[in-house]
């Protein structure tokens, strides 16, 4: 895979009178179709196994082993593609582009983890996602981030999801794949910038648990939303919580919500009600602001589309505002198409981006508004529990729960 691009990048030797024969370019053969179905089978097995290990076996060590397998198979062996995270874009494009058909592998990778999350929580993140597994094996000395910072940074993932959908729906490209920090490491080749980005993420992962999953992963947002309604997701303790707080100490992802002290388990105060009312009233305002801001940004986002970029380049060249010409503009002029046609197409695309930008703004506004409303609630938790959205079902907390140890003792007669 790596030799061909290097050869193609090389200029041919000069002085053709030497009789030098250019080597025949070869392209790697396409992957056998049957292997795609094998991927789906492996995915299903891994998801089922992860569910069983997390929910029934409650065994961290086996979960780690499975995640190592996923890292090797879906990551280094399958080169990180197809991946569930990027499949969001294929599914979005299929919704907006009637000429695009989603490959069945992509469909499976996009939908199956979500279906599992709907019933069993984020078991895909626990042991099947190679991105998560890679960061998890790098985690050595976790540093606990303040909760406020955790919530603030998590907003980025929602924005990233919105932008990814905007670009995929408008033909602007697959930004999740383009800026995937790990896929180039899985492939052991790629642009130096993205490899270094991946290395930075891995170095961060040594101290901050799964930074990409927590603060950027757009698929994690969807899995979190699906997992929040799951009935059988991972629970910390198999019995009554002793409130020892060890699970919270053990979780490097801030995904365990602490118990509400009895003194604070009170009915909402007038202040609470007033705060809640204000934030509910603010929700439409935040959404409308998002609509407005998103519309404003559409014009700039449109530059990501190759047609708009070409139209801009041609216009600036015609106006003498930029020197020289690019390969794309030279090719366009050689094609003989009227620039007006290109400009009209670009204007139509810009209008589409403005609409998409508005919808993205509404999405972000809705997320922020609802988050603020949720933070206005006075919680009432009788025991420590996993956060339905944030918990990646890594099974770390099980090993630290005294009740879990009692269970294992009762079952096996000895401590694990």
């Amino acid at each position, binding site marked *: 895979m*790596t030799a061909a691009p*290097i050869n193609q*990048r*090389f*200029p041919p*030797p*000069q*002085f053709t009178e*030497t009789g030098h024969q250019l080597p025949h370019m070869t392209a790697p053969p396409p992957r056998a179709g049957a292997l795609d179905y094998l991927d789906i089978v492996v995915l299903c097995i891994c998801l089922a196994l992860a569910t069983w290990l997390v929910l029934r076996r409650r065994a961290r060590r086996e979960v780690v082993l499975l995640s190592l397998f996923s890292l090797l198979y879906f990551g280094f062996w399958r080169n990180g593609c197809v991946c569930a995270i990027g499949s969001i874009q294929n599914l979005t494009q299929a919704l907006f582009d009637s000429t695009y058909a989603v490959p069945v592998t992509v469909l499976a990778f996009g939908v199956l983890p979500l279906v599992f999350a709907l019933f069993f929580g984020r078991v895909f993140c626990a042991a099947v996602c190679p991105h998560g597994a890679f960061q998890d*094996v*790098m985690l*050595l*000395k976790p540093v606990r981030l303040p*909760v*406020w910072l955790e*919530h*603030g*940074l998590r*907003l980025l993932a929602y*924005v990233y999801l919105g932008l990814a959908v905007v670009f995929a729906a408008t033909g602007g490209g697959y930004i999740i794949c383009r800026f995937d920090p790990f896929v180039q490491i899985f492939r*052991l*080749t790629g642009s*130096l910038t993205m*490899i270094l980005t991946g*290395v930075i993420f891995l170095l961060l992962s040594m101290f901050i648990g799964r930074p990409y999953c927590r603060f950027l992963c757009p698929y994690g947002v969807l899995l979190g939303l699906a997992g929040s309604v799951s009935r059988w997701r991972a629970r910390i303790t198999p019995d009554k919580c*002793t*409130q*020892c707080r*060890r699970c919270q100490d053990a979780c490097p992802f801030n995904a365990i919500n602490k118990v*509400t002290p009895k003194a*604070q388990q009170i009915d909402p105060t007038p202040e609470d009600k007033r705060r809640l009312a204000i934030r509910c009233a603010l929700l439409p305002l935040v959404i409308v602001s998002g609509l407005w*801001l998103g519309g*404003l*940004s559409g014009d*700039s*986002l*449109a*530059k990501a589309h190759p047609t*708009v*970029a070409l*139209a*801009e380049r041609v*216009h*600036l060249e015609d*106006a*003498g*505002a930029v020197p020289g010409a690019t390969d794309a503009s030279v090719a366009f002029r050689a094609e003989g198409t009227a620039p007006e046609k290109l*400009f*009209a197409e*670009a*204007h139509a695309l*810009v209008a589409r981006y403005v609409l998409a930008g508005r919808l993205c703004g509404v999405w*972000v506004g809705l997320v*922020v508004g609802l988050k603020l409303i949720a*933070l*206005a609630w*006075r*919680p009432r938790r009788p025991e420590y529990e996993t956060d339905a959205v944030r918990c990646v079902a890594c099974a770390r907390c099980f*090993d630290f729960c005294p009740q879990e140890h009692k269970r294992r003792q009762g079952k096996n007669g000895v*401590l694990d």
Partner: protein
Amino acid sequence: MLSAAVFSAALGGLLAWTQAQGKVAALVNAPELARLHEQLRKQPKDEALKQQIRALDQQLRLDTFRRLNLSHATARTLLLGGLVLFLLGAHGVLVFRPRPAPHLPSRPAQHVEEMHMRQVTALAVVAMLAIIVAFVALLTRHPAQLPAPPAPAASAVATGGGNPVAAAPAFPTMDEVRKNWPSFRGPDGSGVNPTAQIPTNWNAATGVNVRWQSAMPLAGMSSPIVWGNSVFLTGADEASNCVFRFDADTGKLLWSAILKVAGGARPAPPKVGDDTGLSAPTPATDGRRVYTLFPNGEVAAFDLAGKQVWARNIGPLENNYGFAASLALYQDRLLIQIDRGVVEDNQSKLLALDIATGKDLWQKPRAVAGSWSSPTLVEVDGKPQLLTVAAPLLCAYNPLDGAELWHVGCLESDVAPSPILASNMIVAIAPNTAIFGVKPGEAKFTWKAENGVPDATSPVSDGQRFYIVDSEGMVTCADLQTGKARWQHEIEDRFYASPTIVGDKLVLLSRKGVAYLLRPGDKFELIGKGEVGKEEECGASPAPLGNRLYIRGKLHLFCIEEAKAATAK
């Protein structure tokens, strides 16, 4: 563990270095190879040189391949192996350490007030939202630069935000013209917009009452003109003459176009002083097209999408200090006052071009010396007159056919201020010498005044008095019918922009970017100040329309509007 980490880090660094060094671009752009190629172009038959190039080419290729081989799979596998060893060691030390005994007593949690923590978290969410909003704001500063989309009706433009006019006539009515600011100092060249309303203070640094500010793509001394929702400006440098269209609501640069005259090399721009620059003439628009003139003699029309309709060269416009006369429009005529040299040179003329084609309609010789003033189109007794000033004449023409209607020989020296008509009195200025009051059609001036005579700026009148400011900051108010001074006041500043009356305010815009707002009247009364920054070195006259004032600085175009009015919209 440590040795594995050091090994991985060293190997990773080496791979990154070879990756950077092994770029093919390094081979293609090798300076020594380029030098030899250049030499071969001069000596194409030099066989020894060819051999030298071949040898160097081969050497460079070998080097590049050697580096690429270093980063081949073996090295990367080694790196991965080192990483795995490191992780195994690190996990062995840090992760698989003894676990807490399950029978330890529970530790009491140290609870903080949950709602307090939640409010801090909400603040963090809002802060992140603010960062995202700031990012979006930055993003919107770089929109896609495309030509404006074609209007539904080819030659129509929205007027004052209204709907495009289908099948618009070839030129606008006077009522339509008066609703806009289509040329230098407004529809009648008086520098007065009685209905416009602007705030009494603004500040570009803080953003107070500044609706928007946009970077100027090119510098120029020409003034902004406004038609409906569009602001047009020109700019030039040694390489090109440009026209720009901005969105009046947002300040977005809708398009920029470079003037290109077919069939000939672009005339070199004349040598001009810095105070005049290469695009001193203000453009004009009729809402169908925008017309531009530059000192190298290039004149052109652009449609509202930025497409050049016609362009031609009307000959050299060499003039001391640089050419500065702005364009005037009357019906389907583009009127250009070209005054050059001394009277005896017979080089001065008044030229009318067809706005649709740019072809000459008529031209009239003028027995005047070089000037820097602009023609002023006024209405006297219901009929149009084009007022021009240049030593020694104040001369009126019929803009339809160029026939001279009347003249008064009273001017001298290098005339730069343009004439105005107010309350049936024309005010014409002989710089540093005298100001003359002339009734239209009369053969001699009515009055002559010698107080505060400006050198570059034009006068402005509120109908009872006229106001002048010279470049050194001396402001003079005098009676319009007698020329007698009412008051004088010195401002510690310099002025190149002509004074403008906006509603009930007299605006004096200084070189330091400070607008002094006075109340027109029989006494000096400063009612406010606006600032756009001294680095802007304002020299162009501002353009008021509606609730806004457009100010061109050296670096930016500003839209001034009362914040409340902007919010209400």
